């Protein structure tokens, strides 16, 4: 995973987006959100992912929103993350905000 801001180089990547590396990911994202620059997150499509990562990103979204910061994904998620989101019930029609964030899709009411 890497994050990009206007003033920092991409951070080093943990090997997975799962509970194995979730502590490191937490530190990485927390650090990125301490600055004032917008944070854009990107990760590889073929990387292993689980619910702990999706939950962490939801936490980061909440943090950014409370602090008035911009936190977005650099590009829509790939099949692996999308699979977890769909199986976990994150992408129902009721949650259009999630679809906009994760998939960069607008859901029309």
């Amino acid at each position, binding site marked *: 995973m890497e994050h990009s801001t206007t003033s920092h180089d991409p951070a080093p990547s943990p090997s997975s987006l799962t509970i194995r590396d979730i502590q490191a990911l937490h530190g990485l994202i927390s650090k990125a959100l301490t600055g004032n620059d917008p944070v854009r997150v990107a990760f590889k499509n073929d990387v292993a992912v*689980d619910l*702990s990562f999706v*939950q962490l990103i939801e*936490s980061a979204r*909440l943090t950014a929103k409370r602090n008035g910061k911009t936190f977005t994904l650099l590009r829509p998620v790939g099949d692996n993350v999308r699979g977890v989101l769909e199986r*976990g019930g994150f992408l*129902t029609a009721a*949650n259009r905000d999630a679809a906009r964030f994760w998939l960069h899709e607008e859901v029309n*009411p």
Partner: protein
Amino acid sequence: MSTIDPLDIFRAEAAELLEQIEQGLLDLEHRLDDRALIDSVFRGLHTLKGSGAMFGFDALAAFTHHCETAFDRVRKGLAPATTDLVMAVLAARDHMRALVEDPAGDYGATGAALLKQLQDAVDGGSGRTEPTAAIDQPETIPAAGAVASTAGDAADKSQMRRWRIRFSLPPDTLFNGTNPLALLDEMRDLGDAEIQVDTSNVPPLDAIKPTDLYLSWVVMLTTDRPRADIEDVFIFVMDEMSLNIEELGPFDPAEPILAWTPAEAVATPAVAAGRMAEPALPPATHAAEKPVHAATGTSQRSEVADSMARRKAESVRVPAERLDELMDRVGELVIAQSRLTQIAASSLDAQLRTVSEEMERLCSELRTTMMVLRMVPVGTLFERFRRLVHDLQRDTGKTIELVTAGETTEMDKTVIERLADPLVHLVRNAADHGLESPEGRHAAGKSEIGRVTLSARQVGGEVIVTIADDGRGIDRDKIRAKAESSGLIPVGAVMSDQEVLQLILQPGFSTAATVTNLSGRGVGMDVVKKTIDSLRGTIDISTRLGEGTTIALRIPLTLAIIDGLLVRVGKGRYVIPLPAVEECLELSLEEDLRSRGRSFLSLRGSLVPFIRLREIFSTGSKPDPYQKIVVVSTGEDRVGLVVDQIIGDHQTVIKSMSKLHDDVSTFSGATILGDGGVALILDVANLVAAGREQEAQLRATA
């Protein structure tokens, strides 16, 4: 505080699950129609698969899935439990263990061969009882969810009902390897499921513990399956989770399946913020149905929850290293308390003495409580040998009965783990070399069923684990001849029976005429000896030709804190473990002089050798006028230790000695005294052995 690797937690859990599966299968072999055993094995396989997948043990999860599916069919009454199936899953269980220990290992065609065996077992079982069903089925082992996914299509729409299921899982769910996505997938398998996550409890980054789970879910399910099937999805997590299942009434095709619609969701501000909208429900249906189903659902669920809560209360998994840390702290506390006792003893302050005595009592209780935390019944070790004997029967063609006794005897868990390999060697030897063939037993007038007995008992400060067989016994002459021919002993050497028998513990020693895949290579017994030596234990062998052999492993209770008897020899202080002390006597100067050169005392009609510690320790000081003899024993053997003074009892925290002192056999460790001084702890087993040697020499020269 140490951190715990989740993979280690999984491996520990997997080891327990595999143990549970194996025990269940071994019992099932004798009671093929036992429903509880079938359920137990299925649950073990199911949990192993789920946890394995969660922690990235994909090969394990995929392989286990096939066994689970086979047992699921048995559980549902679609196939019978057969001996072949039990044997196939037993064999598969060993492969599962390999996949846990080395997921990336090269197993060649092992997995495929085991699956073929499983497939044959399932085919055979189905063919005997349900020939039509077996032929009609497109796959003998259906893929996961195959039954469930077709259920919705085939179901009679009139039986379809709607359910709302709300659930949240305990915070450590992810960390412990339970995958909520798998639960949601199982819900989908039950019918038409609309799943909505609730993220409202997810805290911001500065408050989140990223390994914890904060998500919860609401599932709107339309299915013809009963409530019990829905509850079954959560059966492995029900004891700690929050679960609410409401029946919303019969399915009406005219109504939308889902209670919420995109339009409603958009109109609800909470949804836009990621919160869960309360589904809009027809009030009449909701009010009419809820009391009835709440009552039945609660009673059913509470039964399951009660049993799980009971199980949960039975044990708590704590990493051994945390217990070690706690033990260290208790050890330090005991040392500090010794110091306090010493200060209080020399003080006139009555209050200080009272507090000191109270502290001493509390420390002693705390120590006792701490000690039992690490202790586990030796039965947990013995259980493993049921499988070994099961396999040995198959490999040797002998009928073997395994008898166990003293399973409740407790030992330190790490010691039990280290005893496993030596016992495997000994049980194999007993089965392969000790027991005769059925024909041989018949000819010798014995029952054709050979017996191997595993037993344990505590004697003083040690546990004696015994492996006995009722086989042919060990031929001492054969051992002697073999030892002489291989140069281990000089020809015609004078040796006691015990010494001759101890020769079988020498590396490379084997009297077996043929080497089998079980034993006979002479590499087993010296490994047994090395392990027992490392545990500071001893091996006693007794045998009677034609009647059998008994091997007793005497293992000291390796406790970090022991009650000791503090003694003085010269200017040094030493600790003798109190459980080994039998009695204390006075040795007057006259008696001391009289016994010079013999070092034996007459104790109630029997001669007991004694050792003058001042000579061994070369104190260089004169003996006290009234020396004491502390008589110590290990089971049957006794020896007296001559000391200058007995100071008193002392709670002793054992500190291991450095590598430099590895070859010092007289001491088993050291301890710190209340005044900060150091006292060495005497190794009673070695001293008794020295006394025994002394006695044997005397008898030889007498």
